[in-house]
């Protein structure tokens, strides 16, 4: 293909261009022509097409996401808000923490190992780009039915990819989720969270300021992998008859990324960069246009200087390539020698590819010929915005009206059968088969990891300051009521932080939905965002950033609306925390919170093929009082253990508690047909020493939380209303599921 330059574009305004194949609509193409006052060159077309894709431009979600800013609480804790690579939160003692979740759903379906691996790689670079040392990862995952053939193809590859990349980077994996549902077949969800820590003064931003400063590309060489990955994969619905899209999946090399992390941290420590951006989705198109937009002037780039793995790549391909493990820095000329020296120490390829100008254009040349000449903001930030049609989906009234009909465990035999079935069902079974493939120890600061309610890491060895993170989604509830579902997921994640005694501080999210071109899906999305924004405002938690993944659908079937909510909390001394379970007999067990007949959307209903009914309504005031109680109880060390109730209700919570340290419990409950299986939100089981009973009562009264005595710890069985389930039998049921399914 002959080189298409700005001069040629001006001289030949009527050349046919493949904008539709690149994913642009005809009105979008017309707008590019209007912006430029001529047709775009093929390189410009490549840049606009990837940057204006759904994945990069948030064109369908933007109008809704702005609620996170409009409804935001006033807080000093947020040091960097939405819009940068990741939000930054003040956690005290001069430390700042940055955390974010991203999706890598579509590539992981096509190529599970590489898709998941590069998902971890991408989010880790986002965190690094803020100037932080990445300190942990988490991975909320969703799959089709556990026994489906395609799940057996996808799941082992994704788990190995998350582990293979994260383990090799030396980042502890401190938690996540593994959930199965029919709607995720063909659309597995791979969400990856990374958290990083830095001092306040070390925060870095994506901006190219200062004319004459150098644009430096460092890290891996650019190859043909992932070309158009973002626009082709993440922005189009899979179609069974479509062509193979394998080449669009990126291939990762965690060793290169590990070296890139250490090299970058050394560069940051010497304060050698003015601005920095990682190369992820949309590669150099994104990095150059975002850096130039973030600065005051323009930028000139000599694209032919980019080091290539494949010398035959065209300039369009170089601009679109999503080769992993690359970073782009803006460096003052006086610091460039030292910058190059550090790269050399780490054997990292580094090239000066351009400089910041005092103009207003992003100009890219190829062997001296001008091939891109654009206002950078029009590429990076002024993409199309759609106010897509919304309509309450037809299914809702029908399913909300359904009456749930499930077996109710009343007799001892029924109770035992229910507990064992819930313990073994894939959504609630022991996930060690998964988590044992992840390194949770590296860096030596992991305080909590799976199966704890939240992941917790120490960030200061001297003061014992730490942070806790939990991610949650309840797609069954979101399906029944997306507004409440998002609030309930937020409440659950916050509660999971608080059971250990950490104080919730900030929120991130990864919103996974079907096609935005379906008004029903768009309504689910809008309601979820509204619910989350209202919930965060009511709980006083800022949203620091997030990610939207649309087009998770095969044909007409969309995934369940799956807003994954991550909550970050802070704990002033990790040595003083409430563990998730008890390690001794003779403690008293109490249930905190109120139990209603909340079977709709429950795991027990799902196991019986019942998807209908009405989701519970979130009572965030009560959730906050419960959180206050848990945080206060940790400080005064009232609790010997505390564990959240969520999917699987009291049955699942007691199962997990007794199996953790192999100490049984004897419990009496009223209305087992409700109490054992209900998933009413806002509940926690705590264990206390008998001497702490008065302190617990007083905390409960102060915070207006109902407490109900359940029983005592001890023995070698879980005994509920006389139903005696030996721990051996319970463990067998709980732990056999995954090895049987996945080998």
């Amino acid at each position: 293909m002959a080189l298409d330059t700005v001069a040629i574009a001006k001289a030949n305004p009527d050349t046919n261009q493949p904008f539709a194949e690149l994913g642009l609509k005809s009105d979008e193409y017309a707008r590019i022509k209007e912006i430029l006052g001529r047709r775009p060159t093929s390189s410009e077309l490549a840049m606009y097409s990837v940057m204006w894709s759904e994945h990069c431009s948030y064109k369908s979600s933007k109008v809704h996401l702005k609620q996170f800013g409009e409804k935001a609480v006033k807080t000093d804790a947020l040091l960097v808000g939405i819009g940068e690579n990741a939000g930054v939160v003040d956690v005290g003692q001069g430390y700042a923490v940055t955390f974010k979740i991203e999706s890598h759903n579509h590539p992981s379906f096509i190529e599970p190992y590489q898709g998941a691996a590069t998902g971890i790689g991408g989010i880790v670079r986002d965190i690094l780009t803020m100037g932080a040392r990445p300190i942990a990862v988490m991975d909320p995952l969703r799959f089709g039915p556990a026994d489906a053939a395609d799940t057996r193809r996808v799941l082992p590859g994704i788990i190995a990819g998350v582990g293979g990349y994260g383990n090799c980077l030396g980042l502890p994996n401190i938690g996540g989720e593994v959930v199965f549902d029919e709607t995720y077949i063909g659309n597995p969800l791979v969400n990856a969270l990374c958290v990083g820590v830095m001092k306040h003064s070390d925060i870095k931003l994506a901006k190219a300021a200062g004319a004459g400063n150098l644009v430096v590309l460092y890290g891996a060489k650019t190859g043909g992998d992932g070309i158009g990955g973002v626009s082709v994969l993440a922005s189009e619905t899979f179609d069974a008859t479509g062509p193979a899209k394998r080449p669009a999946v990126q291939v990762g090399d965690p060793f290169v990324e590990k070296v890139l992390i250490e090299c970058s941290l050394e560069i940051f420590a010497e304060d050698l960069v003015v601005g920095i951006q990682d190369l992820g989705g949309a590669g150099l198109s994104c990095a150059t246009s975002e850096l130039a937009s973030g600065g005051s002037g323009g930028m000139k780039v000599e694209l032919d200087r980019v080091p290539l793995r494949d010398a035959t790549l065209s300039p369009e391909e170089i601009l679109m390539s999503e080769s992993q493990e690359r970073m782009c820095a803006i460096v003052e000329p006086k610091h460039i020698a030292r910058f190059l020296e550090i790269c050399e120490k780490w054997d990292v390829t580094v090239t000066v590819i351009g400089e910041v100008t005092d103009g207003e254009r992003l100009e890219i040349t190829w062997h001296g010929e001008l091939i891109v000449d654009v206002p950078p903001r029009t590429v990076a930030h002024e993409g199309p915005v759609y106010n897509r049609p919304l309509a309450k989906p037809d299914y809702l009234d029908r399913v909300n009206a359904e009456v749930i009909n499930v077996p109710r465990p009343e007799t001892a035999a029924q109770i035992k059968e229910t507990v064992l079935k819930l313990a073994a069902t894939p959504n609630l079974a022991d996930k060690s088969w998964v988590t044992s493939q992840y390194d949770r120890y590296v860096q030596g600061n992991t305080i909590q990891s799976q199966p704890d309610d939240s992941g917790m890491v120490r960030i200061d060895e001297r003061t014992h300051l730490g942070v806790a993170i939990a991610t949650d989604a309840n797609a069954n509830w979101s399906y029944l009521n997306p507004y409440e579902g998002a609030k309930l997921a937020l409440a659950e994640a916050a509660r999971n932080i608080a059971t250990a005694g950490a104080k919730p501080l900030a929120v991130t999210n990864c919103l996974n939905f079907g096609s935005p071109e379906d008004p029903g899906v768009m309504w689910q999305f809008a309601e979820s965002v509204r619910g989350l924004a209202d919930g965060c405002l009511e709980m006083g938690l800022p949203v620091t950033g997030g990610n939207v993944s649309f087009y998770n659908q095969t044909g007409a079937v969309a995934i369940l609306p799956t807003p994954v909510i991550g909550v970050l909390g802070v704990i002033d001394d990790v040595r003083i925390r409430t563990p998730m379970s008890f390690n001794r007999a003779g403690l008293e067990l109490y249930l905190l919170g109120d139990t209603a007949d909340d079977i709709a959307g429950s795991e027990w209903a799902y196991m019986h093929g019942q998807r209908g009914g009405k989701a519970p309504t979130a009572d965030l005031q009560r959730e906050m009082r419960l959180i206050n109680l848990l945080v206060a109880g940790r400080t005064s060390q009232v609790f010997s253990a505390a564990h959240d109730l969520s999917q699987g209700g009291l049955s699942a919570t007691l199962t997990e508690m007794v199996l953790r340290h192999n100490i049984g419990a004897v419990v009496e409950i009223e209305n087992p047909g409700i109490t054992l299986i209900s998933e009413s939100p806002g509940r926690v089981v705590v264990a206390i020493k008998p001497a702490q009973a008065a302190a617990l009562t007083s905390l409960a009264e102060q915070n207006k939380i109902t407490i109900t005595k359940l029983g005592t710890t001890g023995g070698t069985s879980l005994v509920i209303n006389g139903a005696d389930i030996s721990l051996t039998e319970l463990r067998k049921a709980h732990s056999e599921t995954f090895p049987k399914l996945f080998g």
Partner: protein
Amino acid sequence: MKVGVVTFPGTLDDRDAARAATYAGTTAISLWHNDADLKGVDAVILPGGFSYGDYLRCGAISRFAPVMEKIIDAANGGMPLLGICNGFQVLCEAHLLPGALTRNHELHFLCRDQKLEITNNQTTWTSSYKVGQEIVIPLKNGEGSFQCDDATLAALEGEGRIIARYVGENPNGSRNKIAGITNERGNVVGLMPHPEHAIDPLTGPTADGLGFFTSVLIAMVK
């Protein structure tokens, strides 16, 4: 007493090994793979990780690093040298220890709290333990299955050079459940599980791993 901790590109547990050495009362000194300089250290730890991305074979490239030439000479002269996980793999590749570490028999990376039995407390790195003592420390690797020929195995067994064995189910298919071995002189030890991650129950399963780091201090003081 100064303990050097080597960082290769791709090393992950260097900070953890340095922390463990410090907990044990020694001074940790960082050594860089590309500097043929031991900075006057009294002992060296090759920590865990994926040096050079584990390309070619685990440890195969690292053994040629400039710092390794000095380390091999010093170890042959009696300097205490501990290789943990990837470090053990480097020691085998460098022929300071016999055998090789191959892919776990279940072909997965495996991270778990592992019970070990200490079977030799006559080495520089194990003198703080009793023979027969059971400890629990993390095991985390993809290629931890110790393999060697029958003659080597017979020699290791006969000479008491197996310093620790896995207790219970064999986690990775290692011959004779071998978790760690030593050289004839007892100054070079390779261990697949990670004692540096078990120096404080706050962050590890136990503090059982600290003994490896106190042992070398005791040996040097003597």
